[in-house]
């Protein structure tokens, strides 16, 4: 069975994909054909792809069939993925580097993650530091301890435990620069910390377009990511461009690349002249701008105007307000 709508290689004869099939965006995930032979197959959206995890074919009480295909993806870590510790210290990966470039201790320990200490004084989360320091001592042969908010090991217990394990009391370690092999001057606080990966991943947020769908009413590019929309160039961005004096750039961004349109203006009455088809004589019809107010096709000019402005004119016109356009040749 073939389909003109997309790839059907992974579908079985029942129109459902086999478990373990690799589906790309745009592939057909559920093949459906009406009795007349019309293709109603379900395609994957441009954000969706993955391996088939589960296929469920079921029906509800009314006897309507329901097919459910679950996809899975393996996502290796990438720049822009979000992580958080148990203390609400959340952050985003800014650099991925290989092991040999990372700092290392004399024991050969290489951190999995390096975080900026400036996040601690302002966020007031000493808990994470305590977790790391206590956890380090425990991992190095200490005993397990209660660390609830009600029974907290005292600072002395933590530092003493670290000292016994052969580390500096405050958890700092002398590390070597992985790129040069030199010692760093300062001691670096290291310890085990529970980190979680949050579902906000760069892959889901990436949003880009050059040309694409526009809003049917305003003819401006759509904003929705699902509909392949673009990134909004808003008021603050506009202000920024103005401040830079980048008028041409601003003009291009907000007009030429957005809702460029043209309309006709009758210079005699300064009203809009619509393009209509009218009779020139009995046999001949002519299509062109014509001013119904002046009943003339003379003295009409064509101007570039955002479609939004044209829309505004028309909406006001509907309410009995007619805008006038002063035009001049330049």
């Amino acid at each position, binding site marked *: 069975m073939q389909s003109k709508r997309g790839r059907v*290689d992974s579908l079985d004869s*029942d129109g459902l994909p086999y478990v373990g099939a690799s589906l790309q965006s745009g592939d057909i995930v559920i093949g*459906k054909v009406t009795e007349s032979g019309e293709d109603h197959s379900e395609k994957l959206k441009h954000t969706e792809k993955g391996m088939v995890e589960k296929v*469920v074919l079921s029906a509800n009480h009314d006897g309507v069939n329901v097919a459910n295909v679950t996809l899975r993806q393996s996502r*290796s870590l990438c720049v822009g993925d979000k992580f958080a510790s148990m203390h609400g210290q959340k952050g985003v990966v800014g650099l991925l580097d290989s092991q040999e470039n990372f700092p290392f201790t004399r024991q050969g320990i290489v951190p999995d993650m390096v975080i900026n200490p400036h996040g601690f004084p302002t966020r007031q989360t000493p808990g994470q530091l305590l977790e790391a320091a206590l956890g380090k001592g425990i991992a190095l042969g200490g005993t397990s301890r209660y660390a609830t908010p009600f029974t907290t090991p005292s600072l002395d217990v933590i530092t003493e435990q670290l000292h016994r394990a052969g580390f*500096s009391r405050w958890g700092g370690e002398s590390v*070597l620069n*992985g790129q040069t*092999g030199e010692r760093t001057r300062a001691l670096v606080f290291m310890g085990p910390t529970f980190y979680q990966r949050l579902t906000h991943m760069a892959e889901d947020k990436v949003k880009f377009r050059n040309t694409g769908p526009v809003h049917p009413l305003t003819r401006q590019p759509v904003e929705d990511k699902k509909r392949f929309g673009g990134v909004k160039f808003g008021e603050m961005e506009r202000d920024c461009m103005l401040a830079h004096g980048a008028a041409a750039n601003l003009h291009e961004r907000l007009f030429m690349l957005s809702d460029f349109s043209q309309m006709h203006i009758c210079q005699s009455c300064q009203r809009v002249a619509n393009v209509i088809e009218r009779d020139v004589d009995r046999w001949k019809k002519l299509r062109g701008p014509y001013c119904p107010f002046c009943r003339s096709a003379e003295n009409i000019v064509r101007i570039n105007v955002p479609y939004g402005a044209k829309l505004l004119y028309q909406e006001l016109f509907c309410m009995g307000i007619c805008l006038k356009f002063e035009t001049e040749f330049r």
Partner: protein
Amino acid sequence: MSMRKESKQDSPSSSCNEVERRSEAGKNRQPTVARWREMGRGFAGGLQTRTEPHLAVGVALAGHDRKQPATRSSPARETAVTGSRFLATRVAYLSWEDVNQLRKVKSKVWLRGIDEQLTVETRIADEMARVRWPGETLGTIGVSHHLTPPPPPPPRPSEMDRPAAAASYQRFPRVRIRELKDDYAKFELRDTDASMANALRRVMIAEVPTVAIDLVEIEVNSSVLNDEFIAHRLGLIPLTSAAAMGMRFSRDCDACDGDGSCEYCSVEFHLSARATDSDQTLQVTSNDLRSTDPKVCAVDQARAIQQALGASEPYDHASAADQRQVVSCITGFRGILIVKLRRGQELRLRAIARKGIGKDHAKWSPAATVTFMYEPEIRFSEEIMDKMTLDEKRSWVQSSPTKVFDIDPNSHQLVVVDAEAYTYDDEVIKKADAMGRPGLVEINAKEDSFIFTVETTGAITAYELIMNAITVLRQKLDAVRLQDDDGDLGELGAHLGGS
């Protein structure tokens, strides 16, 4: 392999293993319309889940048993399915000739006695001395250690012909091995500087090639872990890679496209395991991986055989299969766990191992730990020490987290018992300051001596790791030197010459 589907689909994620999956049920296609409606009626109100283990396995197995009589399963495998499953999980799948071959390879790098240690030290040192930075021969280089000409190299019992000391800034590092085991080495590297030590460390971690499973073609997988997960786990199993230096990267291999059939660049593995009706959970381990090349197999498999060889020597060839079972049972090497199977679940796959380096994926890194430390130089101020009371001295000694200092029981003098235990954590210096005895001790890191600790994953021996790292480093430097053969260093010249 008659069941293989023609079209392959590579997984888009390049960092992980590629996973290929063969269609099980998609063989006999029927017109979609008819099937759809039929199923719709059949399951109206009901629920069919395709991942339901019993169901899926039942169907898949029935199909397979009919189409594929046990042509590919080895005798050992037969035992596994029919009888003593417990023994068979620990079977190492190698023939007896392979084992002997393996033993020969291994014995070459086996170290016993001080003579051999000296030989190894000399060899490493010689190799290190041959590592020369591109600018060295030019003599106008601004890299830190070249600024002042080094002292003349100390006489060493080496046959190496070396250039005249005046013409070159080449240094002659000394190496002393403290400990060398199969997968662990501790050695001192002296008379060189951080750039050299760190280059060695970096190459050991990221650029010494090994062999690891890179492509997995899953035939049946009804286990609880999904295909990618298993492929990833397979990739991380260290494989014996003594031959990796001589192999080709499959991207450079002209003879094949890295499909496992080519002996120069890839090795094929098979795994087939099925939990039979017993209630016991079946552990699928690296011992179930059957290699097509005796030189490359899971590390603990090789080790189990080696141990058993030491245990009892004469085996006759005929009973090798049984012996192999015994081997792994005796030595207790259970292998690396891949997945656990419940009754009725099955895992069958083909995997291709390829040569690679740690830079591309950590699974190719032969290094478990590679690190070095600067040797500390500790000097006391006698004057301040004399002013201290014994109690003060005691509490000062106690302040060090590691046992670096002690008090001489006779003279009550502070002494250094183990300088290398010092971790550069400044605890003792802070303590001395706090006691009002600043300047009691001065600790500096020697700039030119390093103590290396090297541990491998078992893919290659620690000795091989060090030697291969030096070879790789030299190859890289040769490549740079080739560029400036015509006297034009290009960009590099601008960096090095500072002009």
